[in-house]
């Protein structure tokens, strides 16, 4: 693979990936780390890309799965740190308070678990079809529908509470 190939792929899809990760995690530092992780994975997997689907869908799928794993790892790390009473180890979120980088908007989403958050973003923000979400997350459409319903309820309550 030539540098120019990856550079073109990066230029064509960076906006799509950035929008997804910046709605999914709070804090500029975490977003940039996640964004970087997505494209490093794309770079590594590119020689194996067979072209069964469009490259955009393939990258999007990598972005979704990397984001899910990233948030799970972060939650685990945060839980562990809180359990140990060492908040200093919770990562970068504390370095960038939500109000400072505009991500106070994402606070209602923080009440959701990683999968619910992803489903809600994919459905109600990115406007993806339920069947597409189910395929991406390797779930049944019924499970996606019920998770979405639950996620909407939680966020609705949060939005209402915070005005």
């Amino acid at each position: 693979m030539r540098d120019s190939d990856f550079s073109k792929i990066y230029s064509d899809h960076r906006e799509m990936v950035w929008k997804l990760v910046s709605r999914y995690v709070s804090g500029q530092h975490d977003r940039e780390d996640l964004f970087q992780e997505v494209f490093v994975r794309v770079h590594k997997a590119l020689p194996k890309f067979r072209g069964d689907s469009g490259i955009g869908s393939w990258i999007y799928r990598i972005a979704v799965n990397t984001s899910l794993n990233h948030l799970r790892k972060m939650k685990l790390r945060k839980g562990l740190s809180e359990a140990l009473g060492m908040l200093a180890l919770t990562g970068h979120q504390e370095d960038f308070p939500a109000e400072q980088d505009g991500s106070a908007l994402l606070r209602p989403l923080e009440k959701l678990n990683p999968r619910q958050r992803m489903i809600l973003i994919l459905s109600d923000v990115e406007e993806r079809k339920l069947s597409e979400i189910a395929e991406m997350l390797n779930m049944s459409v019924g499970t996606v529908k019920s998770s979405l319903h639950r996620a909407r309820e939680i966020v609705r309550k949060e939005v209402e509470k915070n005005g």
Partner: protein
Amino acid sequence: MDKIMYEDYTVRLKQYRPDVDFDGLYERISRKAGRVSFGPMGRFSLALAGAAVVASIAAFAFVSYFSASPGELAMDYVFGNGRSASSPVMAYVFSE
């Protein structure tokens, strides 16, 4: 009422797009992916330096093969090879 508020919230989410330095992130990704990224001028300079190194090695090999060794050439230059007095040392000796 709830529905309107929730929909308003999703509209704000759709519009939300924090600033980012894509070029800076590209450099970080390139480094992390194990490659060094060069711009067009960087690539040209690198190619030029590479060509210069290859040419030097080729010239050295050519001289070594078809002529005396570099050591012999140096000795000839300093002390002359017995055929001329053009070397600095021999020129000094003959001038005395």
